């Protein structure tokens, strides 16, 4: 107990020989094989009884060296790889990458492609949030929402599958637009889905929002103030739940988000409950965007003029989008060859995960689970 809790990062991984009643410190290793760490996150917890004194994340178990691979692939060849980072929001990843390369190339996707991109990306945001909700609720012990969300997520995946043949790692977009025209009935499917899913979101809320246990488990847990969020670089719903009204779709519109009317849901307390509410509201906003996009889906080409062999001019570009988890940025350095000289992904999960320690200090072990869930991390993206 003499050790200041602030120097957490120097946490001694070795289990101490102290008897834990005296030292009041129990070092527990959570993961990488643990059902609530959403993959292969390993968290080393320092506990006083059940109270968390500090924790350290050990990551890298899924490290595949995406950035290195990028340097050895052409721009087009690398496109499918980005889907493997945040595999629950693959479309968003693809959108960010394609737009970054397009920016580098100086091309712009035609309006129809932009619209389809927005539709698919927002659908993807929905899947991501649904998956988050299901697993988060499961972590907190409510097992039913998982199946409800998966049932509805399935409908989106069906649309993806019909559109591009893949459900998860879609590789839906191409640099310069889309490879595939939308299939017949795409608009109808999407519209049907919108009418189908709106009441389902109410259903999730019915199960959880007013559930006393849910509220008790999430209110006041893992509080992160707006300042903390900004200092820690946390973005996405976590940031917005802390009261910072910032969404890249509004702040620095990309694709053609500026044409759509939607709101940025903002929380107040920055606790787990607010993050839950923000994400629920975001799902509804996504539906609004999709509705507008599909109503105004223009005719026209779906692919801009892009050279067969892409050699972006020498230069570097940083482009970021609002992925479901936060700001997803691509920093690409081109040396004029067909391959990126350096490609850096700014993964939202990775940066958001840094806040875990801050959010968990002084909470209980059970809250660590809730907080990991509420951060909505995907280890594929954290480790890349």
């Amino acid at each position, binding site marked *: 107990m003499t050790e200041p809790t602030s120097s957490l990062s120097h946490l001694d991984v070795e289990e101490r020989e102290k008897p834990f009643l005296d030292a009041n410190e129990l070092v527990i290793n959570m993961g990488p094989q643990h059902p609530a760490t959403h993959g292969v996150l390993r968290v080393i917890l320092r506990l006083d009884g059940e109270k968390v004194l500090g924790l350290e994340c050990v*990551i890298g178990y899924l490290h595949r060296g995406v950035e290195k*691979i990028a340097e050895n692939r052409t721009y087009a060849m690398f496109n499918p790889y980005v889907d493997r980072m945040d595999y629950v929001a693959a479309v968003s990843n693809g959108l960010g990458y394609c737009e970054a390369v397009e920016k580098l190339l100086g091309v712009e996707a035609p309006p129809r492609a932009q619209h389809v991109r927005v539709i698919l990306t927002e659908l993807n945001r929905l899947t991501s949030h649904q998956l988050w909700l299901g697993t988060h609720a499961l972590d907190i012990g409510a097992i039913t929402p998982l199946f409800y969300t998966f049932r509805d997520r399935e409908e989106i995946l069906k649309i993806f599958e019909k559109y591009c043949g893949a459900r998860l790692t879609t590789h839906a977009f191409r640099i310069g637009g889309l490879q595939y025209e939308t299939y017949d009935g795409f608009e109808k499917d999407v519209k049907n889905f919108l009418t189908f899913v709106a009441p389902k979101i109410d259903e999730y809320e019915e199960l959880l929002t007013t559930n006393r246990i849910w509220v008790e488990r999430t209110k006041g847990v893992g509080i992160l103030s707006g300042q903390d969020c900004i200092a820690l670089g946390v973005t996405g719903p976590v940031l917005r739940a802390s009261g910072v009204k910032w969404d890249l779709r509004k702040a620095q519109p990309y694709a053609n988000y500026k044409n759509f009317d939607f709101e940025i849901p903002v929380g107040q307390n920055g606790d787990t409950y607010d993050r839950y509410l923000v994400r629920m509201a975001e799902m509804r906003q996504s539906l609004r965007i999709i509705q507008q996009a599909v109503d105004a889906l223009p005719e026209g080409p779906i692919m801009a003029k892009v050279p067969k062999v892409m*050699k972006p001019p020498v230069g570097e570009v*940083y482009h970021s989008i609002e992925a479901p988890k936060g700001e997803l940025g691509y*920093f690409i350095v081109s*040396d*004029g*060859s067909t391959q990126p000289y350096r490609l*850096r992904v700014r993964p939202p999960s990775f940066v958001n995960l840094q806040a875990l320690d801050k959010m968990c200090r002084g909470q209980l072990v059970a809250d660590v689970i809730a907080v990991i869930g509420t951060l909505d991390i995907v280890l594929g993206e954290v480790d890349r």
Partner: protein
Amino acid sequence: MPDETKPPASSPPEAEPKPTADKTVPLGGVKATTSGSVQSEAKSGEPGGVPLPGTPPTPDPGLAPPPTSPPLKAGSAPAAAGTPTAAAGTPAAKPAAPAKPAAPVPTAWNSPMVAKLKAQFGSGMEALTYLGQNYMTVDRSLIPEILQVLHNDEQFDYCVDVTAGHYPQREKKEFDVIWILYSYARNERIRVKTQIGDGESIPSSVPIWPAANWLEREVYDMFGIKFDGHPDMKRILLPEGWKGHPLRKDYGILQQDNEWVQINLGIESGQ
């Protein structure tokens, strides 16, 4: 900008800010063969094509030649694939690429903030804009102060990313360290770049932005750049004890720390 005279034509000096439409540079260089020869100015580590103001004596050899001349240091890109092809260094002679639209080039970036920073830091920094994205190249010695100023006075309160790039062809200054910053108040994004050599360290920006903690660790992990004053400078993605820094250009894509793999995983090779 004392070094203004040095930069090649491709990077217009600060003094004459031009819109991005400025196409003084023939783009032939970009048409380098796939062998990866990097075109002169920009490619070799300075995509922006900016002179290196920070190091007056010898900025970067790669920058000196006019744009069309062969790069002094050819073959930077291929290093990534582990198949350096130095011979490809000559392609500048192919000024072709007629079909291509003229690529944008970096232009000087002028704003009150830049002016203020200039006044404060003088020649140590240079501000440019490329594709509408602003960035500044800063001398390494100015790094902590300028970041501090950006954070405290210019409201760049959000450190989006810290990353690096490896340019082995540049002697002494092999690495670019890049901070991507964003200001919520101004809704503005900038990049701050500096160059350092292998084995050198750089002041950590964790005291300024706690967000930089893991990002700097990742840079250390991937490039071996040490950050002074970082609270916990150790590997993050790769295991402790791994040898080598994978994102360096001289680290092959199939390369791995065989010894580590054999000891820790008990297998011959991870491939």
